[in-house]
């Protein structure tokens, strides 16, 4: 069902997170059918389910990695990719596409050094291709979290990244 895309972002889980997860799992594993609640708890702590986290779950629950991975990729709410602090969604709807949003997403890929669907190693930016968001009059359009940018050009990409960087 869901597309499997393994992240290239290095795992940056902390000892505190791992301790919290293992503590939670020690009570969850007593439940019947503990795997789903375990993965839900893990995703709440880490924000996503990288292989390293799945391994902790497999170990604590004493189930195989194959089983954990199978469940993690079956349900659409589980994600194997970290979501960046700033999620940039570039509209690839028809109106935006003919106005060059394909070029824009390529510019972001170049500037950020990631592919669409991925997150930067520092966890700051994630890049997403999205379907029409209904702002064709402003094409090409992209959103950064809730904020909408309209009539974007390739030349704007640098400035948008700089603007977001300046927020931190």
């Amino acid at each position, binding site marked *: 069902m869901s597309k499997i895309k393994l992240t290239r972002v290095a795992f940056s889980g902390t000892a505190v997170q791992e301790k919290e997860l293992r503590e939670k799992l020690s009570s969850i594993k007593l439940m019947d*059918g503990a*795997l*789903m609640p375990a993965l839900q708890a893990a995703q709440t702590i880490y924000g996503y389910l990288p292989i390293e986290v799945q391994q902790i779950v497999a170990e604590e629950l004493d189930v195989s990695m194959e089983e954990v991975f199978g469940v993690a990729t079956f349900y659409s709410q589980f994600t194997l990719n970290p979501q960046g602090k700033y999620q940039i969604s570039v509209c690839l709807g028809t*109106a935006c596409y003919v106005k060059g949003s394909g070029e824009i997403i390529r510019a972001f890929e170049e500037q950020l050094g990631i592919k669409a669907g991925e997150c930067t190693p520092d966890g700051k930016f994630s890049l997403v291709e999205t379907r029409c968001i209904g702002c064709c009059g402003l*094409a090409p359009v992209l959103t950064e979290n809730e904020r909408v940018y309209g009539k974007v050009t390739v030349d704007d990409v640098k400035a948008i990244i700089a603007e977001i960087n300046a927020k931190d």
Partner: protein
Amino acid sequence: MHTIHKINKIKELTQEALANKKYRIVVGLATCGIAAGAMPVYEAFKKIAKGSTDVSVTQTGCLGMCKLEPMIQIYEAGKEKPTTYVKLTAAAAEEIFATHIAGGKICDKYYFDESVFLAPQYRIALRNCGVIDPENIDEYIARDGYQALHKTLTEYSQDDIVNTLLASGLRGRGGGGFPTGLKWKFAKGSAGTKKYVCCNADEGDPGAFMDRSVLEGDPHAVIEAMVIAGYTIGADQGYVYVRAEYPIAVKRLNIAIEQAKFYGLLGKNILNTGIDFDLEIRLGSGAFVCGEETALMTSIEGKRGEPRVRPPFPAVKGLFGKPTILNNVETYANIPQIVLKGAEWFSGMGTAKSKGTKVFALGGKIVNTGLVEIPMGTTLRQVIDGIGEGIPNGKKFKAAQTGGPSGGCIPPEHFDIPIDYDNLISIGSMMGSGGLIVMDEDNCMVDIAKFFLEFTKDESCGKCTPCRIGTTRLLEYLEKITSGKATLKDLDEMEELCYYIKDNALCGLGQTAPNPVLSTLRYFKDEYISHVVDKKCPAHVCKNLLQYKITDKCVGCTLCAKKCPVNAITGTLKTKHTIDTDKCIKCGICADNCKFKAIIKE
């Protein structure tokens, strides 16, 4: 732990307190109300009423009239009916307070007479929604809550309950319509000491929100029914499987479970009768197929939510391999009332084979969107033209869609058919969980079929080939048709494929996936023919088959040319413009912006 005497005392005191409160303001705070801005309204009323002993402000669930949210009702001591105020803001709260409570007059500006909407309805499953505070167990108890449970545990045998349900004629409200009493009878008869009671709250149909409303408005009714089910089949453990997308429902259900445990209505030795029953919530994680009973159980077991082959049926071998019953939220919400008022009361409503009421989520092209509960046998016309007050903007009715992605489209000629399980199946649709989407002349039926197939194709779990490959191929046919590339032979092949999938898919999702295609083929074949033969979309929806044109009404204001995102429109000031159809991407912005209605679709 409370005994029934304590419960009855709470009932009496709460009833008295509610009835004697001079003004009781209840604010609709279900998900829909909150999204419409009910929270600031609630806060505003709370602030104004702070310190007053005459006025109380409480939250309640969904009142059913989505379009009019945020809304409140004011109950007054000595008055039977509350006054309803709608479309409120925080500022309106002050006005209403000044006029209604300080001034003793109706505040006309926000007043709404809900009688047209409510009169044809009969509320059983929704009886407490929009009435009680769902986070306060005492208010549920005040409205006969947990009386059915006490009666069950002290006066009825397990067989009595099964027989009552059988005699009531209650059928599953989640879609299939299997007799609930029969399901309980099978599970009761299954051997084994460990059994389970499950509740399906994984409401996944696009456009359906009945179960969410019940859980958000009256969670105790579901809990009470599940304990009755546990006693009846001999189970001491229950699971409610709720979508994670319903955070408010989950929160209120959790609160309700804690309160019920605290009062000794759940857990060990319930109401001092020696009966044990415990309840746990399990969250879904976004898989439509988990609404299918065996897939849901597989998911509770912590696995990929794939359906299992039946038989063995869950009543024999269900959750964790033990006998299990699974009912949906609305089914459970009916049960305490049936136990209290008797099978005859319930079977007195409805048609020959469908008893009681059904909740529908009314949506789409209709004036009053909302949640309605009607006796079985009410006609579609009464629902759409009566309660729904018809189609907005003077448009023509085209079809009503029931049953979500498993259902079908009902054309106007069946408008007067009484709604029940069997009638809907006979006209190629099904009851489903209760979504009722109204479509007008602007909807393309082929496009609607395509929309549902995109959904089922994405949600197919992939376990069986007829569904996994079949829905993909069906969608390809529909895409071919809507892009004007199909032939009549494709139509025949597509229909044949539909029957193949129906006959061979493993579970309900696959078996019913072709229904949207089959029902539109049955009633709207001419629309398919238009797409295939004439290469036209009569409703002007399928973009590949339509063209925008500028008519002689054009005065040459140049607005459309400026707005066009692809510069497909040319023309000089004060002369008629033209659209380059090769460049046009059919986004419709020109037509939306034209002040002279000079741009048309063909």
